[in-house]
């Protein structure tokens, strides 16, 4: 995460947003971690006074999340909380979770190994890098289109699953009601025979 923070400080060479790891998921932040993260430049306000309050509230939030079955780590990482009974089996739910987490991670980064050719190595590197970047430019344009398509698919799946879940719940309640009515009818019929 520190490397990520350093990447975004400057105005150059920033990795496009959709393709970064969203946040550091380590849950137990120390007071030093928080002091390093929060900056208040007004000399009248001391960050050290705020940090214990932040830590206490974070702990309370983690307890609340556990109590209601929410995945606090997923939320802290900006992902979908697993807070409701899924109408799907575990394997399908896992695959959907992976899809949600990765639908927009299609862009390629520069991955150029250093040339070990003696003497002319730096020259070789200077030629290879722009060629790689040129290829990346066209690949990433296509990747962007793929990402748009993936987003449509993920959105459609999310809506479909939600609709299925609502329909399942409606049908479950209907079945429950019919069961109760059937039981009632059977009880009445038995009573009349007796």
């Amino acid at each position, binding site marked *: 995460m520190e490397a990520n923070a350093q990447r975004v400080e400057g105005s150059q060479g920033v990795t*496009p947003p959709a393709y970064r790891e*969203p946040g550091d998921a380590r849950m137990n932040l120390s007071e030093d971690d928080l002091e390093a993260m929060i900056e208040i430049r007004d000399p009248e306000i001391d960050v050290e006074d705020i940090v214990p309050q932040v830590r206490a509230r974070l702990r309370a939030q983690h307890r609340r999340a556990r109590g209601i079955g*929410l995945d606090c780590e997923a939320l802290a990482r900006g992902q979908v909380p697993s807070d409701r009974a899924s109408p799907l089996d575990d394997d399908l739910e896992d695959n959907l979770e992976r899809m949600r987490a990765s639908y927009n991670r299609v862009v390629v980064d520069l991955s150029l190994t250093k040339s070990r050719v003696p003497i002319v190595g730096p020259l070789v590197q200077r030629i290879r890098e722009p060629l790689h970047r040129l290829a990346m430019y066209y690949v990433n344009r296509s990747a962007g289109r793929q990402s748009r398509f993936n987003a449509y698919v993920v959105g459609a799946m999310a809506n479909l699953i939600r609709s299925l879940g609502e329909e399942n719940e409606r049908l479950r309640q209907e079945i429950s009601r019919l069961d109760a009515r059937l039981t009632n009818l059977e009880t009445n019929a038995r009573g009349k025979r007796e």
Partner: protein
Amino acid sequence: MLPAFLYGDAVSNQAARIRHLLRDWGFRSRIYAEARDHRRVNPGADYRRYRGSPDNILVYHYTTGSAMTEFVRQLPDTVVIYYHNITPPEFLDTYNAAYAASLEQGRQELVLFRHLPFALAGSQYNRQEMLSLGFKEVAIMPYFIYLDELLAAADSSAGQRIASDYRDGWVNILFVGRLAPNKRQDDIIRTFNYYHRLVDCRSRLILVGSGDSIPEYRMELEVMLDVLDLQHVHLTGEVSLEELSGYYRAATVFLCLSEHEGFCVPLLEAMGFDIPVLAFKATGVPYTMGQSGVLVKRKRYDVIATLIDLLAHDTPLRRDIIASQNRRLSAFDHDSTVRSLHRQVERMMQLA
């Protein structure tokens, strides 16, 4: 002269205000642009109709790559670049390749003007960038902040309607800025996701700004909201001045997680409405904030949400932060900005 003279755009507003003041001081001043928004009362003229003269001073508002650059370079005028910063093209590569290419062109062509004896920058951040590219003398020309107009507009019927619609005891988290990848409204949504589910469910997120310039990004945000099954997020689109003021009046906390800003005028506008500002420390944002507000150096959504919680209620921290912001605003009062413009005009006259 500027590539696009738009309605409601910070650079366009700055150009219009400068034109107005120059005319007040007795100068003849016109705006020339490539794209002109006719919602403006005086939308300027097409830049190709401009006839240069060695007696003229031409202020070129530099915001992106444009055919205008080559046109300006051929003019006999005393040219002064006024740099408003250019979004790094990497943010736009996968959304709009043509737009990204024009941004890249803009960044590369900026150095073509570094031989000029004098230039202007909208912020200290922009100035430092110009000096690093080899510009010799760069003065800061601050942005005019229209706080009086905004505060007056909040009392309009539209402003009051919006403020009362949202004045229900809920925490209203606000960001103002066009929907753009560098402004990271997606990170704001992730933060709100955490805040709404684990901190305070009586909360809403209001993102004010047009999604028209990069519709693909707006679509991604809408998909994100579907995937997260997140309610109470309002993407308002473009709004009028009166409506904008209403949103400021309704806001509890202003949250900015931008990863590239040359200046970010809404930070100061929020301060003008006594809204505590919480922002990610990147590029021009810390320069604009000065010694006010709260900055975060890493994007931990739980920590940011917790800071929102501390700022949203009537706590000593909220009061202290608002006080620090009021002190910061005094550096941008109208009279001192006018004086700054006057100094820069005098300097330009010396060069002409």
